[in-house]
């Protein structure tokens, strides 16, 4: 195999068990929010989406190591997101019409 010349950006390894705890707590929060809490439907929607995106970001940044990668690599994952947003937005505008 090829011999590596230098390691990737050196950084403090994140506390994976702590991240796991955050994810666990947020999942509980989401389920509770969906069922129990007497909040308005729209607020519930927004909070649930925020929680979901936050969890996804935790996985992406820490488990998938993106927080410590260079921008060029992050770009690869970021690029499809606006495209997805454009498609969904356009088709929703269609349905609204």
């Amino acid at each position: 195999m090829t011999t590596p010349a230098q390691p990737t950006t050196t950084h403090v390894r994140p506390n994976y068990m702590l991240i796991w705890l955050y994810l666990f707590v947020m999942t509980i929060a989401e389920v509770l929010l969906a069922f129990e809490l007497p909040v308005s439907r729209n607020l519930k929607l927004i909070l649930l989406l925020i929680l979901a995106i936050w969890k996804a970001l935790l996985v992406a940044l820490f488990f998938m190591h993106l927080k410590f990668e260079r921008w060029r690599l992050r770009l690869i994952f970021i690029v499809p997101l606006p495209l997805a947003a454009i498609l969904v937005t356009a088709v929703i505008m269609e349905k609204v019409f």
Partner: protein
Amino acid sequence: MTHATQALDQMRPPHPAEPGSGVYSNKLGMWVFLASDVMFFTALIGSYIVLRFGMSSSWAQPAAVLNVPLTGLNTFLLICSSVAMVKAYAAIADGKKYFLRQVPGKTLQDGGLKFWLLITIICGAGFVGVQVFEYIKLVGHGFTPAGYREGSLLAEHALADPVKYGAGVAGMYGSAFFTMTGFHGFHVTCGVISMLYLYFTKVLPEKYSPQDYRGIEVIGLYWHFVDLVWIILFTIVYLI
């Protein structure tokens, strides 16, 4: 090694090339593939969002049709498998190729790559198992890709309470639900099979080392992605 891998190793440029992305090709390739997978799930999940958004008032309440607590548990199982995956990655980075080792001065044993990857596989397979179980239950109750099956339990409930059960658009719900979760489950299954393959061909014979554990990192990226998609799916399909 097969002829192809032999040739591949010897065909790598002996002189390094232009710096490029700065990450090795397998990882770059996996990230590009994951970007394409984002677009695939966009087509499916986006369609669900669009269909639901257009008829939000007549859509069923997910909790009435789906088993949200069980799936919440399943979500947790998948998150656990993701943590186990990253622990496996950290283990091989530290050179821990073993299964379990007694750490002097501590009661808890220290897990190596073999241990954590096995946990990942078990949790991943468990997720698929629970999903299959859920599917069987749902179809038994009458929730199919075509909507509520005639004469089933859910169809009766829908007659009694059309609003809560979204009687008019149950076909859409069934269509979107089974397609999205089905393909996600397919991705999980492919991940489990790949990890099993790596486990027996590379991990057990201790072929990975702290100098080269590319396969673990690359399969880890795929696995975390599958978890990430589920996090989004669970919220959008089961909770909202």
